[in-house]
């Protein structure tokens, strides 16, 4: 006799079947009892008596199992009834019978093809809606920024500087380290290829141009999208869930001004600085590898770098930084406001914020490349 299991015995006598339950039954024995009762298959038209005289205790799960088999036997045309139940079990059986209602526990499943089509349709529809709302949010952010240009005293500098510290200063080590390593890798791979032509020295051009124009700022933007964009969404999303944003509105505070503007301004101001650090660290990494692996001395590297890159290469990287910063901060805040209801929603929108921010950064970077190509710089 295992845990939660009482005794069960059944006997058939002509057209009368008798099932006797005894002892203490609970949910741990419910599965076994269900199988045992399912095996009770009396001859047709036989009457079935469920004798509970020896049953001491049961719980609702066991009561339900008894109830469902009584129903099954009655459906099969048997006269099935309970006999000699003690008051406690009898009350529980009545309770279970009174609460027997058809309740679906699973959403109805559609056929897989329709489900796929419906899913694609819903996703496209939602994407269009999200794009429209994002555009609206872009307008709102721009308007708020324009408004504070007219009334600059409305910018919340305390919040802005705190965000600059968290999104900028605290990100310095990781941005620096990543850029340094990318510089090393780039120099190493480039040197490997260029050596075949005896043109190792051109590794300086490769590092200089790629890091200053593209890689420095892209690495920084991607790290900040993952680090700060997600933090913005999570912070604002939690505030939405706890109705803090609604509280702000009732206190005549504009969430755009209190929450969004400090974050956008902070990131727009710090990302160019971070990009500059990234450029320096990337060149340092490349230079170090060039010195160690290719015997290009530092003074030679610097001289060559001066010949290879114009001031424009540097500025092209830095010019993009505020634009990327604006995108990352705006999407982070936007997704925060899109959070609805639950903690799970915060997580989903945080993921979306990072993915969308990185995607848009790369799209806009491509647009910049075309623009600069047209301008011949």
């Amino acid at each position, binding site marked *: 006799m295992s845990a939660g299991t009482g005794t069960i015995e059944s006997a058939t006598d002509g057209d009368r079947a008798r099932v006797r339950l005894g002892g203490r039954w609970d949910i741990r024995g419910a599965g076994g009892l269900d199988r045992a009762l399912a095996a009770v298959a009396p001859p047709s038209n036989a009457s079935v008596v469920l004798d509970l005289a020896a049953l001491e205790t049961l719980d609702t799960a066991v009561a339900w199992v008894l109830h469902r088999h009584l129903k099954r036997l009655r459906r099969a045309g048997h006269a099935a009834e309970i006999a000699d139940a003690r008051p406690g079990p009898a009350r529980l059986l009545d309770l279970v019978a009174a609460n027997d209602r058809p309740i679906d526990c699973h959403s109805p499943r559609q056929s897989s093809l329709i489900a796929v089509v419906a899913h694609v349709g819903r996703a496209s529809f939602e994407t269009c809606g999200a794009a429209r709302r994002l555009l609206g949010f872009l307008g709102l952010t721009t308007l708020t920024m324009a408004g504070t240009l007219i009334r600059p005293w409305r910018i919340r500098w305390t919040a802005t500087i705190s965000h600059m510290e968290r999104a900028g200063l605290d990100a310095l080590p990781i941005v620096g380290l990543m850029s340094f390593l990318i510089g090393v890798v780039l120099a190493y791979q480039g040197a490997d290829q260029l050596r075949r032509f005896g043109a190792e020295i051109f590794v300086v051009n490769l590092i200089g141009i790629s890091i200053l124009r593209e890689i420095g700022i892209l690495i920084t933007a991607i790290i900040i999208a993952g680090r700060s964009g997600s933090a913005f969404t999570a912070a604002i999303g939690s505030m939405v869930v706890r109705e803090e944003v609604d509280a702000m509105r009732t206190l005549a505070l504009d969430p755009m001004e209190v929450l969004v503007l400090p974050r956008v301004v902070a990131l727009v101001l710090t990302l160019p600085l971070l990009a500059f650090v990234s450029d320096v660290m990337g060149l340092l990494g490349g230079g170090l590898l060039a010195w160690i692996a290719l015997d290009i001395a530092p003074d030679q590297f610097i001289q060559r770098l001066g010949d290879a890159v114009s001031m424009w290469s540097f500025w092209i990287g830095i010019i993009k930084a505020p634009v990327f910063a604006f995108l990352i901060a705006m999407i982070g805040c936007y997704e925060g406001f899109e959070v609805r*209801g639950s903690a799970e929603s915060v997580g989903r929108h945080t993921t979306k914020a990072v993915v969308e921010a990185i995607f848009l950064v790369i799209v806009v970077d491509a647009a910049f490349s075309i623009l600069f190509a047209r301008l011949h710089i």
Partner: protein
Amino acid sequence: MDDTLVMDDGAEIVIRVRGLTTRFGPQVVHQDLDLDVRRGEVLGVVGGSGSGKSVLLRAIVGLIAPAAGRIALFGEDMAALSPAARRALQARWGVLFQDGALFSSLTVAENVQVPLKEQTRLSPTLIDEITALKIALVGLPPEAALKYPSELSGGMRKRAGLARALALDPEILFLDEPTAGLDPIGAAAFDRLIGDLVRALGLTVFLVTHDLDSLEAICDRIAVLAEKHVLVTGAMDDMLSFDHPWVRAYFHGPRARAARLA
């Protein structure tokens, strides 16, 4: 062993707390707290805000480690049990948290099924049927089964939480302010539901509450938590005659009079 489980009058003790001290850093919440809960009774725990009612509940169900003292459930010292034995014991009680504490990524039906799927090896059909039974038992409409917690009202979330707490047919039910945040009609209905379930299922209930109507309607005994320990336990009449400023203010205030008249 001094965890004798039977009182002089024959009542079985299912929760025994002795010399409990809990603290958060320097702040002492309970000091030398003793409390007994008998099988089959509904014990209402009252006390001012911050008197440590919910902390006591959390300490008993093992969510907070006490700084000192012993907590025995069904005669077993919780601190001395192996993890496996503790898990087995945990199936014998259910907890309803203040706002239901439903898993937000699961529907109501899936929430109720979590303990059934984790702790039992019943067939999927049987689990679905038992889930439906529990949802009907707590008085939720059938269509609520497929809704997510964020789509439910506060009262329905509490009912769903109760259905999950009752999933494994526990012997003890812990309720943390079940009627807080409900309108008077909803609160009265919830009191009635708990009363009915207690009678039908033979539950022991540890009820943390502020609600004088609940105390009046469903509690057999009341324990007053103040000055870091249990000040007094007893029936409503004992509370009314007990001489302590807080107890007097609580049970003789205007709201208490209204609750008694109701």
